[in-house]
């Protein structure tokens, strides 16, 4: 069948590719272009933006807000994705294998539910749980004066994101663990290996590829996640202003489109580098 019906194949792919090209690839390239202009949302530079070369990039890299944001994003990704979701997702997948079916399905369902619920809904939920004066957590701990989102904004965001995003890691590790030969685990048990030794020496070599895939995907999703805006809006005083929030605020609240696009470009390039490294690693394994 190879080579047959090329015209039809192109006809099948064309609508999808056209959409992706027009509304994803083209705007991404446009972002790179706006990044080298002094484009503003309003004012004279909105009508006639002029090219400013790499000035925006120089200014961004020199901007304390950007450096701060970069650090917070790294913290957010490391704490909630690389460590939090990874560890909890694996632990759940590992535990759920030996749990009775109805309990497994219920837990899986709840964890998945936290993942698929509307962002604004979960943001309000957590806002209600964490706010001062009547926040649920404050009342449960009998400590109504702690405003969690204000006093510990990053910790709150990390905990929130682990709660929200663990489902994907759980699913992926569940399918990965299913591929580990039970006989090898049995052998490990017979020679007296404890749980941790079995995971390290028997399971981990089998699922190394899955760990790689999972860590990279959840890291990218977390780095690009906009939900923190709904919880803290970057505050207080920029203390939880991760990159997507900073970009959004610079662009639509500050009106500095050129400047914000330069930041977007940096985030975009960072993502692409990570994606390419990932493809390279995958290919080497295969």
């Amino acid at each position: 069948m190879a080579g047959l019906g090329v015209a039809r194949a192109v006809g099948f792919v064309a609508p999808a590719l056209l959409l992706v090209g027009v509304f994803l690839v083209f705007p991404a390239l446009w972002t790179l272009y706006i990044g080298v202009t002094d484009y503003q949302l309003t004012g004279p530079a909105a009508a006639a933006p002029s090219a400013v070369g790499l000035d925006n990039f120089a200014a961004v890299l020199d901007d304390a807000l950007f450096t701060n944001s970069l650090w917070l994003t790294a913290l957010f990704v490391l704490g909630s994705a690389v460590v939090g979701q990874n560890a909890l997702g694996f632990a759940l997948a590992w535990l759920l294998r030996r749990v009775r079916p109805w309990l497994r399905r219920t837990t899986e369902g709840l964890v998945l539910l936290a993942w698929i619920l509307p962002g604004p809904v979960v943001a309000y939920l957590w806002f209600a749980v964490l706010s001062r004066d009547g926040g649920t957590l404050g009342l449960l701990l009998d400590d109504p004066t702690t405003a969690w989102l204000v006093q510990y904004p990053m910790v709150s965001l990390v905990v929130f994101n682990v709660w929200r995003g663990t489902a994907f890691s759980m699913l992926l590790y569940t399918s990965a663990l299913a591929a580990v030969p039970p006989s090898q685990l049995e052998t490990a048990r017979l020679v007296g290996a404890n749980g941790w030794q079995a995971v390290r020496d028997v399971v981990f070599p089998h699922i190394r590829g899955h760990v790689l895939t999972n860590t990279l995907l959840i890291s990218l999703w977390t780095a690009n996640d906009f939900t923190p805006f709904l919880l803290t809006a970057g505050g207080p005083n920029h203390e939880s202003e991760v990159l997507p929030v900073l970009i959004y605020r610079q662009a639509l609240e500050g009106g500095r489109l050129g400047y914000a696009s330069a930041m977007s470009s940096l985030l975009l390039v960072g993502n692409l580098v990570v994606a390419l490294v990932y493809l390279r690693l995958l290919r080497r394994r295969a």
Partner: protein
Amino acid sequence: MRRPGRLIAELVTVVVAAVVAFPLYWMVLTALKPADEVISADPRPWTLAPTLDSFTRALTVQSFGRYFLNSLVVALVVVVLSLLMSFLAATALTRFRFRGRTTMLIMLLVVQMVPVEALTVPLFFMMRSVGDAVPLFGLNHLGSLVLVHLAFSMPFAIWMLRGFVAAVPVELEEAATLDGASRFRFVWQVLFPLVAPGLVATSVLAFIHAWNDFLFAKTFIISAAENQTLPLALQVFVKPDQNDWGAIMAGSTLMTIPVLVFFVLVQRRLVSGLAGAVKG
């Protein structure tokens, strides 16, 4: 299996499930509580006088129903079109060999890494221009949201369906051809039904993606209140002095119901579908 190990595993699982479930439980509880219990300084984790007052407020104030309908229309149109387009694309990319195929696949993988926020500014201008030509697909109209969500759901949908299409044996296709079935007939009458589980999982994700969106709704629908979608409607109840938590939680519960219905219908297939997509 050693019994004590299993018992510990089950205990830990119950604790985790309870922690995950707690905010969800609190949402429904708050929505059902009478107003004075919601603002009470000593809230109880149950209520003895459940009431639908908050739901009534959420549904009557600020045309919540209209927003609900808007969200539903956008999400359903996106689901139908994205299923059709991603199925055709996945079939072509799996079953036909042509130049540029690998490049397309890699491109589809890479565009999934593009940060959404980075595109809001150019997309805003694009939609403004589109609106000058075809108002229905421009700013302040639901069409703009459909276009963007369709484009954003496409790469992952195609990747996911590819695995399902590839799992259908080529022999089946050859047999159909020998029996005189045309290529189109094979695709619609043999391939389409066999790929159905994958289509279900894909449709759920596309639905959730469109239904949950806050960023584009906030950016594109600026001045047309009648075309607002649900996530923004919830903001009505957030007030600087005193948030109406009862109504917020009732609105949130209502907003959750369609997702929940979709989810319950397909939970098993979603799990196997996602697992398959990641492996392949």
